[in-house]
């Protein structure tokens, strides 16, 4: 069992981070007990704000020695409870470890501390003509949190996910030792890919204290196309063909009249051409007007002539982008505000099976009597499906979640899908992952955890039971 925090532990922490950065009891902000979704909640015994990686080494050395559990937290924007200290202990707050260390314009890398916000990275590098391409919807997330969940985002179709943009990591291990894995290098065939094990490990293997990110020159043109279709099926069937056909879109988002209505009500404004049953929202980037125009003309003709699109609307200026993308960006908040409580499923499927899965979800919604709105990154097969509690009693709600999630994940597995595309496993999705990967992989995962963290003090109870 774990050691409960004693006064002498607090004394040690105060010596490391300073008394002003040690909070206990009622001084701990209540919001630190849960994440963005709030379905998992637990109070830490102590909340430590760190400002330096050496503090983390010292804290881990002490906690490892004393068997005190440690949970790392960035902005707390996760959706699966990964940053919730379910065993109490230390909540290690990384939000003040937030310096941008170095932009290397020749190696095209950016070194950052883990608490830097995604929006601040974007602003910083774009001002200097570079792009850090991963584009998860939650811009107030920290880069440390993004790396820990291998966050994806809308531009994954063209640019891949966070993992593809991390060149190197500096990590404090549960023992308190600090390691550097990878670096400013483009290639790496040097032994086991420790960096890639840390990425997506949701704070269970080590604590990221610095990251070296890859940058590319900022494409200076971008346009989106709003493509209406007569039906959901037609829109989604078009996706793999669009991706295979021509210039690779940066994003392919799927919008449907029902979910748009939530956003429109939430934002109090309509998107242009709001009266079609379903849409694809495509984005393209590039460097010359001529190239962009050629690409847009080719893809527009293809959508109309080959894929049955009703029309193709050009979304080219800032105000036009704002008028369309604000509705897409507001989906999660709009769905949250439409009901009393939500729970989410973040499955990722091979693109060609999205239609079948959404049809299954629609039927499930009817069968369970639960409203299940969804939206999705159609281009990468990642769907965000939300169960809305509305007026259901606690008992009926739990029952609906249990049956509904079981059925949805079983269907996803049958179609070659995975439990999580980009939100992670955390606490909430452990059982489903175990069911999917089977005993042999679970043994490997447990073995990996054991090697990194023999005392199981770092974010215990997450990913693995």
């Amino acid at each position, binding site marked *: 069992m774990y050691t409960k925090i004693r006064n002498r532990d607090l004394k040690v922490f105060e010596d490391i981070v300073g008394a002003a950065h040690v909070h206990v009891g009622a001084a701990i902000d209540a919001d630190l007990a849960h994440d963005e979704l709030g379905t998992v909640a637990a109070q830490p015994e102590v909340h430590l704000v760190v400002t330096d990686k050496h503090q983390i080494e010292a804290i881990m050395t002490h906690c490892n020695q004393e068997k005190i559990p440690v949970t790392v937290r960035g902005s707390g924007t996760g959706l699966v409870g990964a940053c919730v200290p379910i065993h109490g202990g230390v909540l290690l707050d990384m939000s003040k470890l937030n310096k941008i260390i170095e932009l290397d314009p020749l190696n095209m890398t950016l070194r950052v501390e883990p608490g830097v916000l995604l929006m601040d990275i974007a602003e910083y590098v774009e001002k200097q003509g570079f792009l850090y391409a991963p584009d998860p919807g939650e811009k107030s997330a920290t880069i440390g949190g993004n790396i820990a969940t291998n966050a994806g985002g809308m531009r994954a179709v063209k640019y891949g996910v966070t993992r593809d943009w991390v060149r190197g990591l500096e990590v404090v291990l549960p023992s308190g030792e600090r390691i550097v894995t990878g670096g400013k290098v483009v290639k790496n065939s040097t032994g086991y890919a420790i960096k890639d094990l840390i990425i997506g490990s949701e704070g269970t293997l080590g604590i990221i204290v610095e990251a070296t990110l890859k940058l590319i020159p900022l494409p200076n043109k971008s346009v989106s196309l709003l493509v209406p279709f007569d039906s959901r099926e037609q829109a989604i069937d078009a996706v793999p063909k669009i991706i295979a056909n021509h210039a690779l879109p940066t994003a392919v988002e799927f919008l449907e009249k029902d979910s748009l209505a939530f956003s429109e009500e939430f934002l109090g404004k309509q998107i242009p051409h709001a009266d079609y049953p379903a849409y694809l929202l495509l984005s393209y980037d590039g460097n010359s007007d001529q190239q962009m125009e050629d690409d847009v003309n080719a893809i527009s003709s293809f959508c109309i002539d080959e894929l049955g699109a009703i029309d193709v609307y050009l979304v080219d*200026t800032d105000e036009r982008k704002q008028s369309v993308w604000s509705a897409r960006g507001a989906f999660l908040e709009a769905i949250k505000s439409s009901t009393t409580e939500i729970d989410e499923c973040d499955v990722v499927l091979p693109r060609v099976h999205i239609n079948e899965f959404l049809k299954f979800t629609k039927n499930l919604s009817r069968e369970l009597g639960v409203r299940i709105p969804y939206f999705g990154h159609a281009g990468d097969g990642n769907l965000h499906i939300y169960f809305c509690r509305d007026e259901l009693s606690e008992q009926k709600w739990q029952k609906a979640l249990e049956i509904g999630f079981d059925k949805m994940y079983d269907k996803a597995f049958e179609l070659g899908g995975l439990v999580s595309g980009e939100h992670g496993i955390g606490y909430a999705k452990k059982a489903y992952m175990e069911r999917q990967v089977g005993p042999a992989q679970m043994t490997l995962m447990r073995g990996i955890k054991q090697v990194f963290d023999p005392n199981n003090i770092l974010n215990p109870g997450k990913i693995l039971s």
Partner: protein
Amino acid sequence: MNIITCVKQVPASSQVDVDPDTGVLIRDGNNVKMNPYDLYALELSFQLRDKRAGSTVHTVTMGPPSARQVLLESFFMGGDEATLVSDPRFAGADVLATAYTLSQLIRTIGNFDVVVCGKQTTDGDTAQVGPEIAEFLGIPHVPYVIDILNVTDRGMRVRSIYDAHDEIVDVAFPCLITVEKGHLVPRLPSYRRKLAYRDHPIGLVALSDLVDPNPDHYGLKGSPTQVEAIFPPDKRTESVRHTGTKTELAQTLFDLLKESKYV
């Protein structure tokens, strides 16, 4: 009903350079877009057209030959006809000379019921061109319109929005309205319309084609405005730190937001 809608090509970015000697905007022909207010002027024009069978929207702009692009875009959004008024002697026009040129163009086209302008442009920001065109044409105008409530053969009823109140106004044809942002949802350029209209003729009118061809009334010569000095805007930002209890700070924040009219 014949509707004439004025549009303008403006810089696409807010980072605009100004010639330090003349005070004239340095225009980059590659980084331009339709004035955002004109998107609303066009949307309102299309909605007005759709209320009366047989109506047309004729889009006009004043600018260099490259400003044809903004007229093409108006076709792709829904426009029926377009005319560019362009002449090297229009260069350097201030608000008054611009309004005069456009009023001359509108007289030259003739036979109109309504002239629709965006409230203002994002480069000049004066909001005066529309009303001045109306004065030159000797017709009534209604500014800051957000909606058409009713249309008859002889006039229409519109809703205008001001800081503290709205106005509902009956106005007889021919008239001019300027359109405020935010209420309507401007339609996007359509690829189907692009295929149908990309070769549609665009009228070209030069100074010599206008009812008044006297060059002294146009461009820099016809502009009473003199730029005395030009300087970059002050970009300093100042921050104020407030301290207090949670309740006090919440109240302070609320008061500040209220003072700035955010709530």
